C-alpha cells in the first residue's frame, strides 16, 4: 500500500458529466418559456426563488454553522428597498438588484455584533432583528402600515413581457448566485468554510479566520435572500410587510435544507425541488400542509440529520457538483494488506477539504 501514492482528485467522472448536464439544463430552462403556459412560467419563477433561498440559508447554516430563524428580514428588506427605489423613479427591474446590494450593505453592520452570538442565541437574535425591522418598515408612510403598497411602476410593461423578464431575471440570479457560492466553496475560502463547518474551534486554532469567513457568508446570504425578496415582489406586485417579514419564509428555508441535506451544495437544490413539488401538490390543503412541513423538518432533524442528499452521498460516495478534494487510495494488485474498504468507502471516509 505504501508504494502506491494516493491520488488527489477534484471531481469524478460523474461530476464532470454533471457539470456538463447543469449547463444544458440551464440552457433548456432559458428556452423553456417558449413552450410553457403563463401559469407554468410563474411557477418556475417561484422554483428559482426557492432554490436561491435554500442555497443561501444552506450557505449560512450548513457551511457557516449559523442557524438563523430571522432570515426573513433580508427577504422583506429586499422587497421594501425595491419599492422605495422604484418609487424614487428608478426603473423597477434595475431597482430589484440595487435593492439587493443595499440589503447586502445593511447586513454588514448587523453581522458585526450578531456574529458574536452563538447557536441558539444567534438564531433568536436574528428573529428579534427581523421583528424590529418589520415594525420599523410599518412606520414608513409609503407602506401604510400593514395595508402595504404595490410596485406600481411595473404596470408600464404588459403582462407577458413582465412575466418573461422576471422569469429570465430569476433564472439568471439563481445561476449567478449558485455559481458564486460554488466558486467560493471550491476556492481557498471554501477550505476555510468547510473547516469551520466541521469544527469551529479546531479551525480557529490552525489559523482559519473564522469570523471573517462567517461574515462573508452572512453578507452573501443576505444579498441572495434580498434578491429573492425583490424577485418575489416583482412576481406578486403587492407588498404587505406581514407577508414578507413572516417567519414562514425561514421555515421554508429550513425545511428545504434539512430535507435536501444540510451542508451539501446539491442538497439545498434537491430540497428546493422537493419543496416545490410538495407545495404544488399539497399547498391547497392549507394548515395541514404547514403542519406536515413542520413535522417533516422535525423528523428529519431527529432521524436523518444529514438529509436525503447527505445520506445518499455518504452511502454511495456520490459527488455531482464537487466542491472539495478527495483522496483516492489506489487499489491495485500489491494491495494485500487486507484493505477491505471499497474505493467508495475509502474516498468518503477520507473526504475532507
Amino acid at each position, binding site marked *: 500500500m505504501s508504494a502506491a501514492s494516493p491520488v488527489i482528485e477534484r471531481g469524478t467522472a460523474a461530476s464532470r458529466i454533471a457539470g456538463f448536464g447543469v449547463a444544458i439544463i440551464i440552457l433548456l430552462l432559458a428556452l423553456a418559456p417558449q413552450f410553457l403556459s403563463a401559469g407554468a412560467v410563474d411557477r418556475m419563477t417561484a422554483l428559482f426563488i426557492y432554490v436561491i433561498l435554500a442555497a443561501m440559508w444552506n450557505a449560512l447554516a450548513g457551511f457557516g454553522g449559523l442557524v438563523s430563524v430571522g432570515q426573513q428580514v433580508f427577504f422583506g428588506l429586499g422587497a421594501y428597498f425595491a419599492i422605495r427605489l422604484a418609487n424614487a423613479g428608478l426603473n423597477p427591474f434595475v431597482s430589484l438588484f440595487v435593492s439587493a446590494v443595499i440589503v447586502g450593505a445593511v447586513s454588514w453592520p448587523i453581522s458585526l455584533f450578531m456574529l458574536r452570538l452563538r447557536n441558539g442565541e444567534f438564531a433568536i437574535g436574528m428573529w*428579534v432583528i427581523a421583528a*424590529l425591522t418589520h415594525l420599523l418598515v*410599518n412606520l414608513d408612510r409609503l407602506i401604510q402600515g400593514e395595508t402595504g403598497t404595490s410596485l406600481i411602476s411595473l404596470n408600464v410593461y404588459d403582462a407577458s413581457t413582465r412575466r418573461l423578464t422576471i422569469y429570465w431575471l430569476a433564472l439568471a440570479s439563481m445561476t449567478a448566485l449558485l455559481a458564486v457560492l460554488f466558486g467560493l466553496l471550491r476556492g481557498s475560502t471554501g477550505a476555510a468554510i468547510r473547516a469551520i463547518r466541521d469544527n469551529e474551534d479546531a479551525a480557529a486554532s490552525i489559523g482559519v479566520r473564522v469570523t471573517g469567513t462567517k461574515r462573508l457568508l452572512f453578507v452573501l446570504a443576505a444579498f441572495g435572500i434580498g434578491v429573492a425578496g425583490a424577485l418575489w415582489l416583482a412576481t406578486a406586485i403587492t407588498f404587505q410587510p406581514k407577508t414578507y417579514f413572516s417567519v414562514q419564509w425561514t*421555515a421554508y428555508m429550513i425545511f428545504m435544507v434539512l430535507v435536501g441535506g444540510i451542508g451539501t451544495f446539491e442538497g439545498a437544490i434537491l430540497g428546493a425541488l422537493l419543496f416545490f413539488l410538495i407545495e404544488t401538490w399539497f399547498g391547497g390543503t392549507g394548515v395541514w400542509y404547514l*403542519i406536515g412541513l*413542520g413535522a417533516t423538518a422535525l423528523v428529519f432533524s431527529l432521524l436523518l440529520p444529514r438529509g436525503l442528499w447527505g445520506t445518499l452521498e455518504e452511502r454511495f460516495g456520490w459527488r455531482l457538483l464537487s466542491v472539495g478534494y478527495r483522496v483516492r487510495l489506489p487499489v491495485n494488485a500489491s494491495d494485500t494488506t487486507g484493505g477491505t474498504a471499497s474505493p467508495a468507502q475509502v474516498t468518503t471516509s477520507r473526504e475532507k477539504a
Partner: protein
Amino acid sequence: MMNQIVQGILLGGYYALIACGLSFMFSVMRIINLAHGSLAVLSAFALWLLASRFHISPFLGLAIVLPLMAVIGWALQRFLLERSARGGALLPILTTFGLAIVIDNVLFEQFGADTRSLAPFIGSLSYDSWEWPGSIYVGKLAVIIFVTAVVLLGGLQLFLTRTGLGRSIRATSEDPDTAGLVGVDARRANALAAAIAMVTVGLAGAFLGMRATFDPYAGATQLLFAFEAAVIGGAGSLWGTLVGGIVLALAQTLGAKVHPQGFLIGGHVAFLIVLFIRLYTSGLGLRGLLRFSTGKVS
C-alpha cells in the same frame, strides 16, 4: 408617569415568569427551546378549553394543565431534545423550531384564527384594582402575577440550592460527565429540569391568557419576550431575570409613550442596546448570554 412605571414593573413580573423557563433550560441543557412561546400558548388554549367547554375555572384548571405540562417537558427532553442534542448544538434549534411550527398550526387547525382570552372566566379579577396613594390604580391580577413570579423565582432558587434534586441538576449543568462519575443520573436531572421549565411555561401561559388575548400564532412573540427579558437580565441569578423582565416592560411602556406603535419597538431596541453593551464590555458571547450561575456551591 408614576402610574405607568408601576404598571411597567408589574408587567415585568409576567416577562420574568415566561423568561425563567427559557433561561433555566438553557443553563442546564444548553438548549434554547424555540417552541417555548408556542408551548405557553398551548397551555393557555388548554385552560381556555377547560373553562369554555367544562366550566372549570382557569385557576382550578391549572391543577390539570400544570402536571400535563410537566409530562410534556419530560417527554420533550427524553424523545426530542436528548436525541437531537447528540447531533451537535445546531440540531436542537431546528428540532424545536419544527415543533413550534407544528404546535402553532395544530392550534390553528383546532381553534381557528380567533383571538381568545381567559379574562371572561375569572370574574371580576380581570378588571378589579386597588387604589394606591397618589391615585395609582393597580390591577389585582397584575399584582398576583408579579407576586407569583417572585415566589416562583425564589422557590426555584431554593430548590436548586437546598434540595438534593436541585443540586443534581446544578451538578449536571456544570459538568454532566463529572456529575455522572459521582452518581448523578444526568438524563434524569435533565428530564426533571425540562419538566420544571414546562411548569413555569404553563403558568406563564395561564397568565398570558388572563391578562391579555392570545391566538394560535402568539407563541413567536412570547418567545421573543422571554428571550429578551432573559438576555437583559443577564448572567447573575434567577433574580436577574426579574430585573430583565422589568427593564423590558419599562422600555415598552416608554416606547408606547413616544409613538403609538412604539410598544414593541421600545422593547426590541432596549434589548439590542443591552446586548450591544454586554457584548462589548465582556467576552460573554462565548459563554452564552442566557447562562446564569445556578448558585454558589454549598
